[in-house]
């Protein structure tokens, strides 16, 4: 399946993954971030409960310097 993460298309061999699978794959588990899945924020407690499927759009954001 193909999903779009932060505007970049990525291909996975599986037909569905959880948000937890995704953060493990991206190796961002030690960082502070928030995830939006098809326009909806996923609470951390739901990371293993949701399914990400073909064509889904994800935004993963963090805090950076700004004024």
């Amino acid at each position, binding site marked *: 399946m193909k999903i779009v*993460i*932060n*505007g*970049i298309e990525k291909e996975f061999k599986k037909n569905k993954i959880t948000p937890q699978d995704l953060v493990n794959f*991206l*190796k*961002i588990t*030690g*960082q*502070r*971030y*928030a995830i*939006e899945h098809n326009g909806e*924020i996923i*609470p*951390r407690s739901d990371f293993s409960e949701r399914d990400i499927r073909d064509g889904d759009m994800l*935004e*993963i*954001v*963090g*805090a*950076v*310097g*700004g*004024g």
Partner: protein
Amino acid sequence: MDKRDLKNDELVIAGRIFNSRLLVGTGKYNDFKETRSAIEKSGAEIVTVAIRRTNLGQNQQEPSLLDFLPPDKFTYLPNTAGCYSADDAIRTLRLARELLGGHNLVKLEVLGDSDTLYPNVLETIAAAKVLIKEGFDVMVYTSDDPIVAQQLEDIGCCAVMPLASLIGSGMGILNPHNLEIIINKLTVPVIVDAGVGTASDAAIAMELGCDGVLMNTAIAAAGNPILMAGAMRKGIEAGREAFLAGRMNKKLYSASPSSPTKGLIK
């Protein structure tokens, strides 16, 4: 509070108590070490941060801003810089709240024009209404229009933050009289946000009676940001104390010399 006293002169925003009236941004520094040194020197307790896409490249272990400015030592103020619509600003702050573990004190800014970064007050008001309904404590960046400032207070913003001049311009306080009207009319804290260029600008803002000043470029783009951070701290404190003390009246000339007129040697 007694206007002529420094005791208990705290800045209270949405029930949170701060001792520093200087709020600083964390952008435009050369590196995180410089960011931290400058912010420590400034004495600021509230620091703004932007919300951006996480870098999903190779360097996952590189340090982040949060490592240098631990959220337990500073009050984070996530902003909506770069948002040009109410919807984008709301989306950004919902993500910020999730990212910062439920933290709901935020800086709302909705821009209207990429050349000037002038605020779009209609979109700002629309976004503020939604965010307040969702439980956010909204500190709002706006123009120096007193009517808009009043409306932002009326809908429930916890601090109103008019510009002194355009973001990043360093032009100083271009319309002190509008700021005075806003300060006189509003009951929530009024914080000058944007346009301050040097320490005297910060002092003037505080002498006008502002409750605080938020700045970023004036420190980060100074020749020596850490030295300027200290200068800004002093400018804020000097201006605040002068405001509390109450300045003397201006006179074109005075027949009242400071030295005694009696006992002159003849």
